[in-house]
């Protein structure tokens, strides 16, 4: 074996190990769903069962937590996506130190630990407005950093936008409102969809921030964590399996749409 082919073999082996490391734990967790053991495990194998899906279906509190998560996710889309859009529209037109400064402030929530985002929101809204933890604060706390993700998505798309389109429309007598509705917004529609999708995903899986601002409300992620610590059964695995399947589906659909979009608009950069 030559040195080059040995190196290629080593690289291949490392990649197989790496991707195995990424997926094997998820596979084990999924497999434990079908083991008829009372505790989720794959060793020893007690026989195949689907009973834990039924147990999950019958779990009232799970449905309630799912409802809360959907509500919070919808709220975050409604708050974070417009904020991110406004921020990107503003940044796109600034070329100065003000832009650098604003940009730094906007991305700072992404570099702040989630627990601190939750704590600062909790303290601020109680002290100034007397608002305590609950759905409202959960939406606000999550939006404070998810808006930054949305802003980055919009900014990336705006960078490929041809501003002469807007100028031409303005020269031809269109109002600013018309230009925004007929040119800017349609151009940004794919970014609005992907920002909404990512905002929902981020909101749905959030744990660290939500934990501090949730009050008495329980989102699905918080519910799963509480089940793991008290009352763990393979029903939690069934739920995990469903969520992972939905995530994979979402990722694949997102990727297909993204590639179709990329083909339609060849990126010069």
């Amino acid at each position, binding site marked *: 074996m030559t040195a080059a082919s040995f190196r290629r073999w080593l690289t291949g082996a490392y990649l197989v190990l790496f991707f195995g490391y990424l997926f094997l734990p*998820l596979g084990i967790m999924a497999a434990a769903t079908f083991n008829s053991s009372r505790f989720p495990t794959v060793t020893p194998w007690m026989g195949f069962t689907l009973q834990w899906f039924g147990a999950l279906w019958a779990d009232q509190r799970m449905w309630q937590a799912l409802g809360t998560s959907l509500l919070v996710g919808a709220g975050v889309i409604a708050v974070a996506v417009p904020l991110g859009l406004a921020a990107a529209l503003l940044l796109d037109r600034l070329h100065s130190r003000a832009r650098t400064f604003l940009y730094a402030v906007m991305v700072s929530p992404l570099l702040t630990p989630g627990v601190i985002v939750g704590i600062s929101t909790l303290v601020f809204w109680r002290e100034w407005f007397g608002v305590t933890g609950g759905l409202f604060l959960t939406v606000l706390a999550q939006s404070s950093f998810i808006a930054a993700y949305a802003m980055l998505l919009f900014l990336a798309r705006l960078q490929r936008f041809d501003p002469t389109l807007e100028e031409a429309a303005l020269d031809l007598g269109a109002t600013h409102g018309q230009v925004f509705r007929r040119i800017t917004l349609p151009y940004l529609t794919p970014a609005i969809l992907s920002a909404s999708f990512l905002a929902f995903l981020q909101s749905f899986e959030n744990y660290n921030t939500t934990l501090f601002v949730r009050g008495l409300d329980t989102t699905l992620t918080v519910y799963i964590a509480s089940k793991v610590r008290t009352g763990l059964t393979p029903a*939690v695995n069934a739920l995990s399996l469903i969520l992972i399947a939905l995530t994979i589906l979402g990722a694949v659909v997102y990727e297909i749409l993204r590639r179709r979009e990329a083909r339609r608009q060849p990126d010069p950069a």
Partner: protein
Amino acid sequence: MGGVLRRYGPVLTAAILLAVASWLLLLVVLPQVLMVDFSFRPSLPPSKAGGPEDVYTLRNYATLWTNQIHLAIFLKTIWASSLVTAVTLAVCYPVAFYLAQVAPRRRLPTLVLMLVIPFWINELLRTFAWYIILAYNGPLNALLVGLGIFSEPQRLLGGDAGVIVGMVYVYILFMVFPIMNAMESLDRNQIEAARDLGAGWLRIHRRIVIPHAKPGIAVGCIMTFMLAAGSYAVPALLGGPQSRWFTEVIYNWFFEGGNWNQGAAYAFILLILCIAFILLMMRLFRVGLTDIAK
């Protein structure tokens, strides 16, 4: 500012400015400022708020130095998060290099999708997967006993080791993507040229690849360290009373100790730790804030 007004007109400009101002002031800056202000005040019953006892004090910060248990947990959080960062960097570097520089272009989208999928899966679920693997009757113990490495199952959950192993798994993708993105812009010809001129693999990485990927490495380390030090889910699921994390101490101040001022001080200390780490990385890799915030 004139450009904004010219492009969007008065109505839209006002709406944009209002939205950005309310986001940054109400959701980002003021909450942080108030949290810091809160951390320098004593915890008082509402009747005494604003009274003579309501003065600025460093008492909440002194607690960390006088409470040996909390101090030990804080220091452990620092070294354990550093360890998590170092291990993920070592594991990810070859993968990022392969994907950015070696992988055949037509296979790349599929490989990247295979990274994106676990990246999108809920952090808590990825932690839960390790809860099952590390359980006393779990597959890892079964394997180790089966291979004869242990004579009987060991307690793998509830200690620092389990937490660290889980964190490496959960945060690893935050390291891969920044490094990969930074390496992608490196011209493959540069590596070819260096090899033709007789440079060995080690030298090519030390002199060409690493200098080029520095901003990506810095971002990956910053994200991983911040997520590890600020993690609540992983220590809550995989740790135990003997392996508490600093975030858990903070949580207890808020929801069990009922001393929000004290909790705010600890939260601010955690924030300072993360900022210090960012500055350290910028110094170490000699990159500016604009390189990082891309």
